């Protein structure tokens, strides 16, 4: 659907290979994920009720997922009563059409946007460009990747694949005038200067939403830069795009989840800016948009209610799973090829883009379980990845070589006598390929021996040796 075109043509393995060869990328990934991991650990250690909060967060999400229709209808009633217009989009194309229509009806020339992964998911940047509308990303990291013409590589830090030094080079070319120095503070000032005029001149501001509060009809944005407020307040029209799973019953529930979200994402206790947007400007309000539109997007989510990926609807998009993922930390976000990278993305991308083109993602995981361990809403990510593998096997998407290999192995493993024979022959054959204790090259096992040696097996299997021992014991008087 909205995956970048290029990712369809280049395989996951090739993208991963390119990423692995990029040492600067590795430095950038290590800096950000390393800091995130350390800060999260400190934040969790300083919050003795973290486990209880996690259980509560999970229960809140499970409750709303079980009563999604009830809360969404309540939200629509209250949001409408507050003066907002609620739109329903069943998929990405419908969402794009609704938003583009609002922009064109308003004759908008300039749109500011605060960071929203849902906007990426539905392909909003391309849709606005196609409609001839200038789009300005106001989140600092989104500003960076907009200048670079790139997609986000992380759901919390979209530009984390770029080092500070690379950003300095980019700003030198793209900012007018260029920043006077390349220390972070001067670079941030330069970006503020670039963005300020756009904030004030925009016709429409588009934001995402971290929470949709059913009993007030408010949408909540959280940022650390304040750009969401500047995106949503000055323009005449504010458009909110949100996945339907963002619903919570009350503000208190939103705050319960926010405690988990911030600690898991950045290790902070609270975001710098936490804003509840409830309807457009009312009579007597000092500022605010004249129109507020809320586009509620399904795009595969209701399908997940009834299948094995239901628990993924709990996700609050904190990014902890990718920060703690050994694979993500080697290849970064772009190699995944979808809107959402890392472990959570490997569950979601097949939902959004189909399994046939993304079957590598659930397979490219060691099943080490660290993602589930840090997930603030206890999503059993490895179990969900395994569910994709099961579907992939059933749908015969796995490569023939693997199917044949597993098939032959299973025929043997289901027959202990034959398996024992094959093992005895196998270890003797394997010994022929090695010298000393190691095998450095082995036909058909290049995946192993390209990078590491294989211990040469002992001459006889355990079972042979054990049986000989037992026979010896038995023969003694």
């Amino acid at each position, binding site marked *: 659907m909205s995956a970048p075109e290029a990712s369809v043509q280049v395989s996951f393995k090739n993208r991963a290979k390119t990423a692995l060869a990029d040492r600067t990328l590795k430095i950038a990934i290590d800096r950000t994920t390393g800091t995130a991991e350390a800060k999260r650990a400190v934040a969790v250690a300083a919050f003795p009720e973290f486990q209880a909060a996690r259980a509560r967060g999970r229960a809140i999400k499970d409750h709303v997922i079980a009563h999604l229709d009830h809360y969404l209808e309540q939200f629509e009633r209250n949001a409408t009563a507050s003066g907002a217009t609620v739109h329903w989009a069943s998929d990405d194309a419908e969402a794009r059409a609704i938003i583009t229509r609002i922009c064109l009806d308003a004759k908008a020339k300039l749109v500011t946007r605060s960071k929203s992964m849902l906007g990426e998911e539905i392909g909003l940047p391309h849709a606005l460009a196609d409609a001839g509308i200038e789009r300005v990303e106001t989140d600092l990291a989104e500003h960076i990747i907009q200048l670079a013409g790139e997609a986000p590589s992380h759901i919390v830090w979209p530009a984390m694949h770029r080092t500070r030094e690379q950003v300095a080079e980019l700003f030198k070319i793209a900012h007018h005038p260029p920043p006077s120095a390349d220390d972070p503070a001067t670079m941030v000032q330069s970006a503020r200067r670039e963005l300020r005029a756009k904030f004030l001149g925009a016709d429409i501001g588009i934001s995402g939403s971290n929470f949709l509060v059913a009993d007030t009809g408010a949408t909540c944005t959280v940022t650390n830069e304040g750009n969401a407020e500047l995106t949503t307040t000055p323009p005449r029209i504010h458009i909110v795009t949100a996945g339907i799973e963002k619903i919570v019953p009350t503000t208190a529930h939103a705050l319960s989840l926010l405690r988990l979200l911030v600690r898991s994402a950045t290790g902070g206790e609270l975001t710098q800016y936490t804003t509840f947007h409830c309807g457009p400007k009312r009579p007597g309000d000092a500022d605010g948009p004249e129109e507020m539109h809320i586009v509620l997007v399904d795009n595969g989510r209701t399908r997940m209610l009834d299948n094995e990926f239901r628990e993924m609807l709990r996700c609050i998009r904190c990014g902890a799973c990718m920060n703690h993922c050994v694979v993500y930390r080697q290849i970064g976000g772009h190699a995944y090829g979808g809107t959402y990278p890392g472990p959570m993305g490997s569950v979601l991308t097949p939902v959004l883009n189909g399994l046939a083109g993304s079957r590598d993602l659930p397979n490219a995981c060691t099943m080490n379980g660290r993602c589930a361990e840090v997930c603030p809403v206890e999503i059993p990510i490895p179990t969900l990845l395994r569910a994709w593998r099961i579907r992939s096997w059933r749908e015969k998407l796995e490569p023939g070589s*693997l199917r044949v290999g597993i098939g032959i192995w299973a025929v043997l493993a289901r027959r202990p006598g034959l398996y024992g024979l094959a093992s005895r022959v196998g270890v003797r054959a394997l010994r022929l390929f090695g010298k000393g204790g190691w095998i450095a090259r082995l036909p058909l096992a290049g995946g192993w021996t390209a990078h590491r040696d294989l211990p040469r097996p002992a001459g006889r299997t355990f079972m042979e040796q054990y049986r000989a021992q037992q026979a010896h014991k038995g023969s003694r008087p």
Partner: protein
Amino acid sequence: MSGQPNPRVGLFVTCLVDAIRPSIGFSAIQLLEEAGCRVEVPQAQTCCGQPALNSGDEKDAAALARQTIAAFEGFDYIVLPSGSCAGTIVHGYPDLLAKDPVWAPRARILAARTHEITSFLVDVMGFRPKGRRLSATATYHDSCAGLRELGIAAQPRALLAEVAGLEMRGLEGNDVCCGFGGTFCVKYSDISNAIVTEKAEAIERTEADLLLAGDLGCLMNMAGKLNRRGARTRCFHTIEVLAGRADGPAIGEEG
């Protein structure tokens, strides 16, 4: 079940130990017997089925689950020298057979009796090795399945603390995956290599004589990488050290 002084234990040696490193199986028998168990090795065992399970091949995985259940359900306990294979029996089998009215209860009963060996020795048998001595420095890698599926962390360390002369050194990222992941390491060989390279670097920085871990798959991956890099670190399964076999050949050394 606890409190039984001489339980009958079925040892599942695991397919990798059977083929690659029998010494781990014999170490297990020795320690279990020292702890007072009557140990048997059912001949109908092959593999727990994890390669099929992790490849999405439920049918073959379920067949192997049933075969393993039938082979081991007569014992008081089933013990494995692998957190990964034990985790498959404890969590994988009940899930895999959940909808089978005959096999689901049998899977759950077997799961409740299944233990990784260091946790069995400590948590069930209250065992500590006696009179072990090894003059060496060692570092320990927490294999992921044992750590996160079965909560194995304190038990191997408690047992190793009984070995006189053995100095344990902390490993940076001790709870981070080594990049093995079963078939992952050959299917995504380049990514696995990048992960195990970082692991090997961390191990080398400890300058320990020995690397210890509780799963042969992870050990083969790390040992194979360390050897390829020319490192001198000797790699053993935890229970080989506990059984006093660390004076013998390490993984990749000829006996």
